[in-house]
């Protein structure tokens, strides 16, 4: 399969990339890891006239921690870098749990987290993780920078809030205010398949009390689902088997699964509940295991 014909540019600076995008308008598309865009172009689901390859832009392959604990992931940071990251292993259990579950090891060598967010696939894993963590995306365009909260970044299936001449240059995960725990669980038929169901859960605790909780769902709706009520139900009280069961019920109620070849809607909803219980029961060793 071939993509349809396009013009290719590989700018050396962000300013040049933005001006190319501005000139290309609706028909221009940013290429980073290409692990979603190239397949879409081959299937002719996407036929951009101009490809702006950002792989030669310097200084975007980082993921790093600010002194205050904020984690920043550049647009060219590959999944494999996050999978092997000592920083995430020690500081960011939710991202560390998700990184090895993205696609397969070969795709992880090229694909990027920020690209995955932009692709906005309802079955994309990172969008749920960044949503659960309360993260945002930094976009750069002709008028400068702006921060877009993850909950507003995905506007629908395969749709994001970027203007045609904006580039998502960074994903930002705010510093936890207490102790951070949580994880990401994904049900897939085999390695590399899209998620049948994925659940990201992040819990911040101060002493025994949960100060903030975020839960987001992959593959059980037309776009990434933020299970806001489930998260809010956990806040302000200790994590117990009862509070976990409440949150799991609310998360399952927030899911909008459809029956397809990966499973029935009922099964997927059940798995959302099971995954919330599993992640949260492991979040704190002192809690009675509910799963």
């Amino acid at each position, binding site marked *: *399969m*071939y*993509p*349809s*014909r*396009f*013009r*290719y540019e*590989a700018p050396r600076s962000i300013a040049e990339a933005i001006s190319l995008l501005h000139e290309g308008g609706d028909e221009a598309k940013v*290429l980073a890891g*290409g*692990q979603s865009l*190239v*397949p879409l*172009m*081959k*299937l002719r689901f996407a036929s951009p006239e101009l*490809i702006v*390859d950002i*792989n030669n832009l310097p200084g975007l392959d980082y993921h790093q921690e600010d002194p205050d604990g904020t984690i920043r992931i550049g647009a060219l940071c590959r999944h*494999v870098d996050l999978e092997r990251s000592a920083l995430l292993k020690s500081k960011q259990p939710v991202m560390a749990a998700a990184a090895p579950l993205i*696609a*397969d*090891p*070969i*795709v992880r*060598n*090229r694909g990027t987290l920020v690209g995955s967010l932009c692709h906005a696939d309802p079955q994309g894993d990172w969008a749920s993780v960044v949503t659960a963590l309360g993260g945002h995306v930094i976009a750069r365009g002709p008028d400068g920078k702006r921060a877009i909260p993850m909950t507003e970044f995905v506007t629908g299936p395969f749709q994001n809030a970027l203007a045609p001449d904006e580039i998502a240059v960074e994903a930002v995960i705010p510093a936890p205010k207490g102790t951070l725990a949580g994880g990401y669980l994904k049900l897939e038929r085999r*390695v*590399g398949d899209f998620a049948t169901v994925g659940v990201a859960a992040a819990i911040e605790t101060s002493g025994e009390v949960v100060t903030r909780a975020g839960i987001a769902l992959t593959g059980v709706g037309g776009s990434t689902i933020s299970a806001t009520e489930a998260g809010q139900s956990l806040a302000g009280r200790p994590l117990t088997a009862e509070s976990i069961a409440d949150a799991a019920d609310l998360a399952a109620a927030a899911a909008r699964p459809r029956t397809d070849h990966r499973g029935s809607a009922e099964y997927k909803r059940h798995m959302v509940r099971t995954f919330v219980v599993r992640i949260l029961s492991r979040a704190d060793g002192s809690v009675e295991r509910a799963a």
Partner: protein
Amino acid sequence: MTIVYEDRGDEATSDVPVNRIRFTINGQKMVAEIEPRLLLSHLIRRGLGLTGTHMGCDTTNCGACTVLVDGRPVKSCTMLAVQADGHAIETVEGLSGPSELHPLQEGFKAEHGLQCGFCTPGMMMAAKALLTENPSPTEEDVRWALSGNLCRCTGYQNIVKSVLWAADKLRSQS
């Protein structure tokens, strides 16, 4: 190097965008003039005539087209050839010397790591990257590293054994 396209008469030849790229293939320096929509797998198979890189699914699933780009395994059906500009590509043809098999190839032979052989080049390239990074992998490490490559014949058992065989051989040589 020449790549010939069908002339459908719908676009003037002058409208076809052409980019010039420089890259190395199995250590040899190359220059190519290509249309940007050409995939790396097509550049390798049709442009360079290196048909050891197989195309199975053409949808980023099977890993048969895996090659190394700057040492890292990549599915060559999911990278534009124009993106190879300035990079080093290694294919299965680069494994062996003029008269000797690479230990991975020997391993696949000794442990019956293939039946139809279609997935084998991709398996070997993914395995090569693993053994470069981790000369003493466990069985689990091998299974993990090859989890992006599909085989419909072997059930994987002998592929894993083959890679472990090659790891032993490479360690004994060094």
